[in-house]
């Protein structure tokens, strides 16, 4: 059974229809990369997967929970605990230390013991290579370091799915590699990931499947070698010729 199922998803902002009939499935442990020109709706699509955007129509089922069902009141906060999200602009909490950023969720939501949460946070920081920054504040970190902390913060809730919204787009070029390295490691460990990205190299290397979106539709999806090597649609070809 797929861990994410999206059926006939539509999303409008006012009169502007950003997503028009999106259908997609993600299997457990799959890494899906979503590419496409800006304004194609790929970020909106991602944000619908944890209801950061209210959907206009259609169905989103996450790990068996139909989060778009208006009748059965699903506790979205519960579902979100299982879906980590990493943002383009990190969105770390500037008033908390790196360690507190990571432990806040487990302590306040899961009622994890403070010492236990701290121990887990240090483990995660070690994993992203930032153990020595535990007592720093986000303002003292570089962009790449912030993003790795953001990944650790999301992982602290022990999610089943990780969503990445252009995680390297706001980084200086020399910082991108560190972040992608952490994401690769995560993929290797079997995390289910949906990654909106402009990093075609990453999509090609790490993605199990690549989705190309344009104009609010999924134009084409395929395994990376096929999609990049042998695109079927004109729009995919035109986009790839510009970015590759």
């Amino acid at each position, binding site marked *: 059974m797929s861990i994410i199922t999206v059926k006939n998803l539509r999303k409008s902002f006012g009169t502007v229809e950003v997503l028009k009939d999106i259908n997609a499935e993600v299997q457990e442990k799959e890494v899906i990369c979503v590419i496409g020109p800006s304004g194609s709706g790929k970020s909106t699509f991602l944000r619908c997967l*944890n209801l*950061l955007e209210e959907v206009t129509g259609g169905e989103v089922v996450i790990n068996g929970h139909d989060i778009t069902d208006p009748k059965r009141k699903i506790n979205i*906060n*519960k579902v*979100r*605990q299982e*879906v*980590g*999200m990493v*943002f383009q*602009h990190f*969105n*770390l*909490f*500037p*008033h908390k230390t790196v360690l507190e950023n990571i432990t*806040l*969720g487990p302590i*306040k*939501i899961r009622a994890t013991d403070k010492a236990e949460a701290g121990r887990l946070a240090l483990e995660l920081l070690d994993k992203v290579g930032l153990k020595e920054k535990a007592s720093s*504040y986000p*303002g*003292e970190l570089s962009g790449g370091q912030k993003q790795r902390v*953001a990944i650790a*913060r*999301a992982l602290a*809730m022990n999610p089943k799915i990780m969503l990445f919204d252009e995680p390297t787009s706001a980084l200086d070029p020399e910082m991108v590699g560190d972040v992608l390295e952490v994401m690769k490691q995560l993929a290797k460990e079997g995390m289910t990931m949906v990654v909106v990205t402009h990093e075609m190299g990453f999509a090609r290397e790490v993605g199990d499947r690549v989705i190309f979106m344009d104009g609010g539709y999924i134009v084409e999806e395929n395994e990376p070698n096929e999609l990049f090597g042998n695109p079927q649609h004109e729009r995919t070809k035109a986009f790839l010729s510009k970015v590759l």
Partner: protein
Amino acid sequence: MDIIVAALPLLLKGLQVTLYIFVIAIILGFLIGLLVALLRLAPIKILNWIAKVYVDAIRGTPFIVQLFFIYFGVNSLNLISLDSTTAGIITVAINAGAYFAEIIRAGIQSIDKGQTEAARSIGFTGAQTMRYVVLPQAFRRMLPTITNQSIISLKDTSLLSVIGIADLTQQGQIQASATFEAFKVWLAVGVIYFIIIYLLTLIANFIERRVQVR
């Protein structure tokens, strides 16, 4: 000088009343402000409207009219009987509350939307997001304006002397007419207000430095 020395005990007694009213009223006012700010931002139209009417009504009328309305107006209905101190505290509180509401609303709105999204994506409820993520950041930004409004409210308490509250200003009036030394007495009263407000500013600056976002 001996006139001031003789008047000082009574002036300080008045100061005690001023501070008593100020402290209670400013705490109440702050709680009112926080509540009204949250109503103002709540996704329910009628609550926004109630909050807006309250803020507009207070901002659009003079303090002294609000004071007379509560002390004379409400008391004249014979439904409840407010003594002057209670009426004074209520007036300062609802007056400051309206201004605090606007300060807090602006503070909350100044926090980047990404902060809320990050907290919600972890699984925090709306209320938890407010409490652990948005408000702590917003309060740091609001501190200078909160201090400012508190000082204004402290000075507003001097108007309470007109309904017979024996605050610092009222004691000044009594001493000035009893001694015929208006110049010295009012100078002393002014100096006392100044010192209190200066201390308040120092405390606020200290807190501001302590909680600065790094």
